[in-house]
């Protein structure tokens, strides 16, 4: 059979001769045909298997929709715009592409971003040609987080673009260059499917990112356009790239030799599904773990080796007694404010452009992080016996475990001791954790991630944390939570928002939640202040702080009742002012979620610190300047 196959591939025999030869060699007709099909792609002149590409004739929008569907699009997140007309026409016959509408392009992008972060899949969106500026703040957030988004818009008709005419400017794409991984304006309707494929591939190839494609409306409406549409499997590129073996060996030696190693984890770990492999590596060598400020929890935060964010390291070292001598960054940007002299620094990332950018490295590991973690573990095991490893790590393991247990116990005690009116935020977290399901998803956009990390257990078999974005442009979380729930419809989703963050134009996403019965509980920690901004300004002890003038942080006038905002969208809610009221209000919210509707919980929380007592703001009323009552 080998000779027959070789002759076939080398074109020395025909298909018929091959099948006859197989039959003569006692193969059944079906078996011979099966062998032929398996080697057919290698035969000169053979065509791709017919299921990987097909010719489609239709409007430009037909090509767009069919290629999106092949790429795996379940939802298309949209905003209103007449440029979506050609797509609407296609959907009459392609109902499998579900539209989810937002009322503002910025929230559209955050919904898509939440969907992509929760599902691990590329999300698709489309908005009006003039919606691009609105979309850009959450496009920036997505770019910082490397979230794969494909965002389309229509564009001026091809005979008018570039004329600075109605709804057109000279260069739309220049403005979003830093916020997108790639961007393009289509100029031939026959290439709409091609650029859709390209957008999908660029957005999803690691490290991912948002891409934007503009398509002139006349091209979307153009009829009788014929082009190839590729099947989804033709677009999936295996990305399990293994790191250089010599670098792995070098890094493993550093880790084994280290007296006091530290593992610093970031979002690439979660994006590549590497948490379990990293836990195995950390446990093998008893490496304490520090979390980069990430939009995921990249290591189980209640694990005995998890010590928190970087500022928590000194307290651990006080217990352990040996300065850090090996720092291993797995999938995070580098904390550039730290001094790494006399430390062997290892950086593992899928993105070669970030490795070594700000810090001299002892070892650079470029590759898929799951592959890297597995390779490092194997290398360490090949260099030392279990007994040798145990001897080197036992003391560190015991001290770190004892330290983290004590710290967690203190946090629990602090929350239990926090009570009263207004509600201490940590009490809110404690009560939520008491009632939420073990695998609930927390979408957060609060000042600091630690508020969440202290009270909820995150991990592959626990809760999931999504947010806050690394870009930290407020106005993301409410929309993102709707996207998360669309991706994970069978898990509880709770969105934790500050009052200030919510007021960054996020009311719009309540409309989407209400229209599509997206049962998310939005919890607003309402302290009537941009608290951390106020601290930052006042603690510098500048003129404003000395004069007790809170120019930009006080939010108590008007005193917003967020449940009334929700009520306008037919979303029920509750206001909680006292800790006693928390548990029943949370129960009410969870009941509402089970009934399939969103819920708003407005919790009046206490603020403190510099400027907390102030209600001063630059008082101004136009009433004093009006001369006519019109």
């Amino acid at each position, binding site marked *: 059979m080998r000779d027959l196959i070789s002759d076939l591939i080398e074109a020395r025999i025909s298909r018929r001769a091959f099948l006859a030869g197989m039959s003569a060699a006692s193969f059944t007709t079906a078996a011979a045909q099966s062998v032929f099909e398996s080697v057919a792609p290698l035969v000169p002149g053979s065509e791709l298997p017919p299921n990987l590409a097909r010719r489609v004739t239709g409007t430009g929008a037909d090509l767009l929709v069919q290629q999106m569907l092949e790429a795996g699009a379940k939802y298309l997140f949209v905003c209103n715009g007449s440029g979506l007309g050609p797509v609407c026409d296609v959907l009459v016959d392609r109902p499998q592409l579900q539209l989810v509408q937002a009322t503002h392009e910025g929230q559209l992008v955050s919904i898509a971003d939440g969907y992509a972060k929760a599902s691990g899949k590329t999300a698709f969106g489309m908005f009006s040609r003039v919606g691009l500026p609105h979309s850009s703040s959450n496009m920036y957030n997505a770019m910082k987080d490397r979230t794969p988004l494909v965002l389309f818009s229509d564009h001026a008709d091809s005979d008018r673009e570039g004329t600075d005419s109605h709804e057109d400017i000279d260069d739309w794409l220049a403005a979003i260059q830093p916020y997108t991984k790639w961007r393009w304006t289509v100029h031939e309707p026959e290439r709409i499917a091609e650029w859709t494929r390209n957008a999908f591939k660029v957005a999803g190839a690691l490290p991912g990112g948002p891409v934007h494609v503009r398509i002139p409306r006349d091209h979307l409406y153009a009829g009788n356009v014929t082009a190839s549409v590729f099947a989804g499997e033709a677009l999936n590129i295996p990305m399990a790239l293994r790191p250089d073996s010599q670098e792995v060996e070098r890094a493993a030696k550093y880790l084994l030799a280290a007296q006091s190693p530290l593992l610093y984890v970031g979002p690439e770990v979660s994006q590549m599904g590497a948490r379990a492999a990293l836990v195995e590596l950390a446990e093998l060598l008893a490496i304490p773990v520090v979390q980069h400020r990430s939009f995921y929890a990249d290591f189980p935060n209640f694990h005995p080796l998890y010590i928190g*964010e970087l500022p928590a390291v000194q307290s651990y070292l006080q217990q352990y007694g040996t300065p850090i001598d090996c720092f291993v960054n797995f999938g995070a940007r580098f904390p550039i404010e730290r001094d790494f002299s006399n430390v062997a620094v290892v950086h593992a990332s899928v993105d070669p452009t970030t490795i070594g950018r700000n810090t001299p490295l002892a070892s650079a590991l470029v590759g898929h992080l799951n592959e890297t973690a597995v390779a490092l573990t194997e290398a360490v095991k090949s260099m030392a016996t279990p007994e040798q490893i145990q001897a080197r790590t036992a003391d560190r393991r015991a001290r770190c475990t004892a330290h983290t247990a004590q710290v967690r116990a*203190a946090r629990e*005690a602090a929350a239990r*001791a926090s009570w009263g009116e207004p509600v201490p935020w*940590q009490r809110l977290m404690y009560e939520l954790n008491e009632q939420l399901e073990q695998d609930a998803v927390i979408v957060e956009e609060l000042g600091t991630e630690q*508020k969440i990390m*202290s009270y909820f257990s995150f991990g592959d078999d626990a809760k999931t944390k999504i947010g806050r974005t690394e870009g930290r442009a407020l106005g993301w979380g409410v929309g993102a939570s709707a996207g998360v729930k669309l991706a994970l419809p069978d898990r509880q989703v709770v969105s934790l928002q500050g009052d200030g963050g919510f007021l960054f134009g996020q009311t719009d996403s309540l409309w989407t939640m209400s229209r599509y019965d997206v049962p998310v509980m939005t919890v607003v920690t309402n302290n009537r202040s941009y608290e951390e901004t106020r601290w930052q300004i006042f603690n510098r002890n500048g003129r404003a702080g000395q004069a007790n003038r809170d120019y930009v942080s006080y939010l108590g006038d008007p005193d917003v009742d967020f449940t009334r905002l929700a009520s306008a969208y037919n979303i029920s809610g509750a206001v909680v002012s006292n800790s006693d009221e928390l548990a029943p209000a949370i129960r009410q919210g969870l009941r509402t979620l089970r009934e399939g509707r969103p819920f708003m919980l407005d919790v009046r929380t206490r603020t403190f*610190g510099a400027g907390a007592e102030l209600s001063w703001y630059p008082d101004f009323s136009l009433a004093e300047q009006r001369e006519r009552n019109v």
Partner: protein
Amino acid sequence: MLATAAVLYPLLAWSQNPFPDGPARETVVLVCSQCHALTRLTDSSMSAADWEFVLYDMIARGAPVHEEQLERVRQYLIDNFAVDGQ
């Protein structure tokens, strides 16, 4: 002159020994200084109840205090920094 002395005296006292000895002194200095200047403690004028609230808030935000140190830290902050003392 008397008024000036009354204003300056506390500042002088703090500058000489802003963190008096005590069973939790080392923990307070180490933990608090990782995230902010220690003048946030010495320059504050908060009641004992407020200090307790701040301590629990900071622990919840990630200040790595051990449970077995918690009561000593609370008492140290109140004894040395609360405007209403005990």
